[in-house]
């Protein structure tokens, strides 16, 4: 594919608001995870919570969108002036020439979970305050962002579990290439809810401790929440990075377990390299999906080594942010671009004993390192795989 300019990007995670706070945490090897309560959950685990998602207010005219997920989206739009940059793109290209393609897995379902506790005792009806379409429905975050930014172009939500907000980069690149839009707001937003907390616990994939990707004793993931946005434009005088390739594949193997040899994951990485016209040796750093479950890390390790060999520096940043599910692809795209721009390879946190069975070159300390090309993996339930490759701005 023709390299596509990333003119702006930002993220809000448990590490903080915006690029500077995130970069500082990555340099310091600081985690945003903590063993803390969330809502009414009675689950022993560590969480990556974005505190301000409790309190930030949406504008009065968009009040019907009010839910934790869209509040997170609003925090993201305010970080690093992202909303201003997107409105400027709309002024440049025309509001109808700017698309909105965002990923989420659970959208604003927390609203409906709470509403189900307040059903009318006799009729079973849900409380009148629940606005299903603007909160719970899977599309609501793109509807909110499109409305908040005054955009009029095509929009959808990609919801392919934990690959969602990586795949939107591919969708937007195709839309721009086809001449449907000139620019696109992409990224992902996912917020903590009971469905994922109790759901991952039921699958025994939620760790009671902090997640430890690539550790011998890793025993599950830690959940987080986040908003991450990027602005992709057909032309840009001062891009912050280039999207060079976006590879996608399916496992076709199992709904909730990866292909044991990582065959689908390897196919996505090779597709991304093919799109970028790069050889494996051209990549300087790989941000792993690296959830910290025994099976996921083992399969990804095999896939990474099959494609890149065992000398490519790589790490999972889920020990910093937690697994932000439908936002993870966008979050880790932003982290990868930050790493690229500032020459920082982030450490994979919380490793006490590296798993000797895993052969990839896993970085346990953050390191300054000049880079030209970075890649980011995202894999999800349903066997959905994506790999993004970004090139330096110069």
């Amino acid at each position, binding site marked *: 594919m023709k390299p596509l300019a990333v003119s702006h990007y930002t993220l809000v995670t448990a590490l903080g608001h915006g690029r500077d706070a995130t970069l500082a945490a990555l340099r310091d090897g600081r985690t945003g995870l903590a063993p803390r309560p969330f809502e009414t959950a009675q689950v022993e685990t560590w969480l990556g919570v974005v505190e301000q998602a409790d309190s930030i207010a949406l504008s009065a005219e968009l009040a019907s969108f009010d839910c934790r997920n869209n509040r997170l989206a609003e925090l993201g739009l305010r970080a690093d002036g992202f909303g201003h940059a997107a409105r400027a793109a709309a002024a440049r290209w025309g509001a109808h020439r700017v698309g909105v393609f965002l990923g989420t897995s659970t959208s604003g379902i927390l609203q409906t979970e709470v509403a189900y506790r307040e059903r009318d005792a006799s009729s079973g009806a*849900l409380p009148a305050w629940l606005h299903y379409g603007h909160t719970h429905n899977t599309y609501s975050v793109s509807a909110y962002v499109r409305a908040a930014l005054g955009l009029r172009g095509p*929009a959808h939500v990609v919801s392919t579990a934990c690959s969602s907000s990586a795949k939107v980069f591919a969708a937007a690149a195709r839309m721009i290439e086809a001449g449907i839009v000139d620019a696109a707001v992409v990224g992902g937003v996912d917020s903590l809810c009971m*469905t994922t907390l109790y*759901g991952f616990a039921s699958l025994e994939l939620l760790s009671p401790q902090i997640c430890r990707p690539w550790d011998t004793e890793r025993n599950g993931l830690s959940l987080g929440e986040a908003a991450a946005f990027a602005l992709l434009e057909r032309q840009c005088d001062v891009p912050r990075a280039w999207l060079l390739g976006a590879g996608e594949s399916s496992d076709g193997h199992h709904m909730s377990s990866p292909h044991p040899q990582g065959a689908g994951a390897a196919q996505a990485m090779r597709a991304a390299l093919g799109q970028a016209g790069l050889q494996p040796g051209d990549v300087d750093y790989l941000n792993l999906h690296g959830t910290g479950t025994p099976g996921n890390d083992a399969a990804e390790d095999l896939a990474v080594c099959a494609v890149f060999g065992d000398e490519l520096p790589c790490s999972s940043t889920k020990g910093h942010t937690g697994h932000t599910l439908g936002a993870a692809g966008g979050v880790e795209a932003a982290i990868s671009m930050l790493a690229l721009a500032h020459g920082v390879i982030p450490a994979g946190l919380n490793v006490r004993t590296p798993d000797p069975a895993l052969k990839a070159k896993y970085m346990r300390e953050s390191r300054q390192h000049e880079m030209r090309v970075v890649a980011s993996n995202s894999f999800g339930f*349903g066997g959905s795989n994506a790999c993004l490759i970004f090139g330096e701005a110069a």
Partner: protein
Amino acid sequence: MTAVRVIGVGLLGPGLPDWATAQALLREPAAWQRQATVIPTPARLPPAERRRASNVVKASIAVADQALSACGLAASALPTVFTSSTGDPLNCHLLCEALATAERMVSPTRFTNSVHNAAAGYWHIAAQSRQPSTSLAAFDASFAAGLLEAAVQVLSTQAPVLLVACDVPYPQPLHALRPLDDVMAVAMVLAPAASAGRSLHIEVTHDDAPITRCADSAFEALRTGLPAARALPLLHALMAGAAGTVVLEGLPGSALAVQVS
């Protein structure tokens, strides 16, 4: 403008068991008797997945198989675009119900099936396909969003893509907030412009052009009754065999004008 060919169609809806029957009924709407959608159990699914598959999975696979048999392509060879407003509503309701109890006992299968891309996941397992797949949502504009995405993929890869749109109604109490009429699913295999088949020229409109409605009032009620049925004017144009332009309901400010020839 994006030009693609339609080389296979599948349809399942109320009183509409398949695309062949539906074509005849679209031609003679008076003969259509609206009855609850009957969802076949797909033979394609392995036994373990068949037990766990919900209505959105079964209906999606039924129409995908119809569209594939029409064009003779192998399921394992096709990238897919799945689009749905709601995903699996019964599963969602039962999860919310379980999470509202003191015990909060969640079944692992129920959680696994709660992902919006469940239909795509089951399809790719059944098809033994590692081809790329995406799963979209755009509320009432979900069909138009899926059609645009699939057409743009065909343009980008110059290879056929399978589009599957499916909506399933919520049980109460969510039904009161998001009333969908019945189960409906539509599949199309789209192929590059050089292929044989009916041609679609797709354009995003920005002038609030009037949406094409169904001439028959019963079909028009179906069209507005659930998002996948927003495809009916396009299906009618494909059936009629005549050239014409339909405007499919999209998001405010971006409907899809589809010129069929």
